[in-house]
């Protein structure tokens, strides 16, 4: 009987469990989670503060799922090392758990650069976990001034979640634009304008030089006062368990398209890994929910003898702020086609007869998956009416045989 062990109670863990059980009904499955919660939908924490969901609704699968899958959850315990010779994982309480196949899905952790005086700030928060969100929620107050360091996805989703419950929000970022990981300058300016209209103030190309208990002095000399500080500078992948035993790590844990690490019988999935991005033909960290889910599935399938591959990875992201939706995918390389209108922003990126990237903001996001599919499947643009589909994502633009296949055959 195979012993499957999963470190990290994440979305990748949940999909790995499902995939393992499709192939192996008997093997034992054990999941170790550092947080005291079963796998939950991490991106939902801002929606819980916003009131769009609740902490109770956040588990990715209900409790009966783990029972049905005969998966044992060990929660509130951290794996501290892997003994690859004995094929055991050692927990922080000294327990040794044996494995035949191990999945490392340890995610990432907030990165906080050294900042002078940060230790003097009493009310400071990260924004990664349910507990982070709960402790921030306790301090929300209509009179509270909030300073957010970091204008990325995490920082700005936090802003959306709390804006209505606080007095003001200032955001500082070293980058020259907001959402630097998903937007270019032009798109970022548009979203920034919208967020400023909601009352958020931005201090870009700037950083905190020093803190006192309730003030931040920026490099530019600007002084900001605050009651609550949110640190959302960035994240770092949790790679130590694999790196410590000689596994290949290049920023993230390096895996092949079977989600296997360089060490025998050890697999990795999710935000702790690098993926091969097909649009730029390069390995990078694609720390995105759908990717973690697909990697978990492939890892679980491979661990239990399957042949699935994780070989169509792209960056693809949907995010919204106060009703303004943004969908982006791929790489911003090649030729740019700007099809923006007054209702929405749309820039498509093409290279060598392929759509390789897109940035859509506003009404142009509808049916965006038709574009995402062109990117992910690397469909030659010469095989369809690109002029038509660039204007509007429609299946009409495909050749008849492809339409018939899409709408008339089992998918």
């Amino acid at each position: 009987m195979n012993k499957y062990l999963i470190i990290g109670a994440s979305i990748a863990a949940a999909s790995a469990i499902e995939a393992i059980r499709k192939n192996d009904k008997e093997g034992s499955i054990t999941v170790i989670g550092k947080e005291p919660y079963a796998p939950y939908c991490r991106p939902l924490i801002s929606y819980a503060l916003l009131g769009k969901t609740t902490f109770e609704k956040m588990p990715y699968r209900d409790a009966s799922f783990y029972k049905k899958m005969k998966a044992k959850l060990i929660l509130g315990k951290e794996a501290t090392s892997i003994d690859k010779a004995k094929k055991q994982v050692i927990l922080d309480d000294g327990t040794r758990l044996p494995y035949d196949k191990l999945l490392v899905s340890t995610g990432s952790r907030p990165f906080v650069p050294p900042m002078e005086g940060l230790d003097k700030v009493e009310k400071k928060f990260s924004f990664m976990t349910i507990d982070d969100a709960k402790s921030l929620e306790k301090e929300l107050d209509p009179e509270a001034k909030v300073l957010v360091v970091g204008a990325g996805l995490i920082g700005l989703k936090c802003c959306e979640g709390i804006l209505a419950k606080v007095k003001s929000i200032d955001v500082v970022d070293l980058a020259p634009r907001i959402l630097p990981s998903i937007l270019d300058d032009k798109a970022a300016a548009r979203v920034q304008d919208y967020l400023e209209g909601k009352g958020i103030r931005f201090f870009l190309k700037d950083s905190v030089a020093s803190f006192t208990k309730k003030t931040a002095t920026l490099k530019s000399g600007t002084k900001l006062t605050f009651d609550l500080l949110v640190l959302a500078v960035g994240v770092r992948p949790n790679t130590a368990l694999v790196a410590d035993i000689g596994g290949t790590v290049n920023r993230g844990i390096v895996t092949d398209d079977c989600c296997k690490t360089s060490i025998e019988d050890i697999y990795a999935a999710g935000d702790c890994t690098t993926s091969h991005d097909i649009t730029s033909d390069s390995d990078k960290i694609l720390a995105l929910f759908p990717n973690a889910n697909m990697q978990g599935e492939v890892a679980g399938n491979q661990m239990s003898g399957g042949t699935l591959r994780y070989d169509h990875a792209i960056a693809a992201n949907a995010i919204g702020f106060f009703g303004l939706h943004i969908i982006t995918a791929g790489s911003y390389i090649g030729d740019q086609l700007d099809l923006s209108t007054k209702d929405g922003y749309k820039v498509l990126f093409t290279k060598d007869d392929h759509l390789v990237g897109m940035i859509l903001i506003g009404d142009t996001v509808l049916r965006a998956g038709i574009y995402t599919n062109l990117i992910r499947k690397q469909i030659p643009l010469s095989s369809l009416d690109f002029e038509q589909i660039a204007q509007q994502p429609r299946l009409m633009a495909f050749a008849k045989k492809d339409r018939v296949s899409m709408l008339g055959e089992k998918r």
Partner: protein
Amino acid sequence: MKRVYVEEDWCLACHLCEYWCAFSNSGKDNMVAALKNKTIKPMIQVEEGDKINFAVSCRHCEDPICVKSCISGALSIEDGVIKIDKSKCVDCYTCIMACPYGVLMPNEDEGIMQKCELCTPRGTAPYCAAHCPNQAIIYEER
């Protein structure tokens, strides 16, 4: 499993499927009460071209990327049908980003996504197929 399939050579772009879909999902037992003076929000939509038209609705994929992408766990597969738990949906649009057919639609009134869940009891034709006057929408096993 029986699914909805489209024969584009037969579609007249009459849009009746959209009205029957809206009626079927209205919870009302009378079409007039359900649709009169309302902007319908159907889960099937007709694409119209110069010569060709066809209706597009959820394909109920066997390996659905929308379900894998859903950040809230609102989308799931039940007996082959892709369902949406509206109480879990947070309207993040990740499914819109993912679906290759463009069939998940935001319902602005409710602030959540909507999609075809094959409205009628299993095995019987959904309203769009049952009421298509030209058999351009077919519900069968393929």
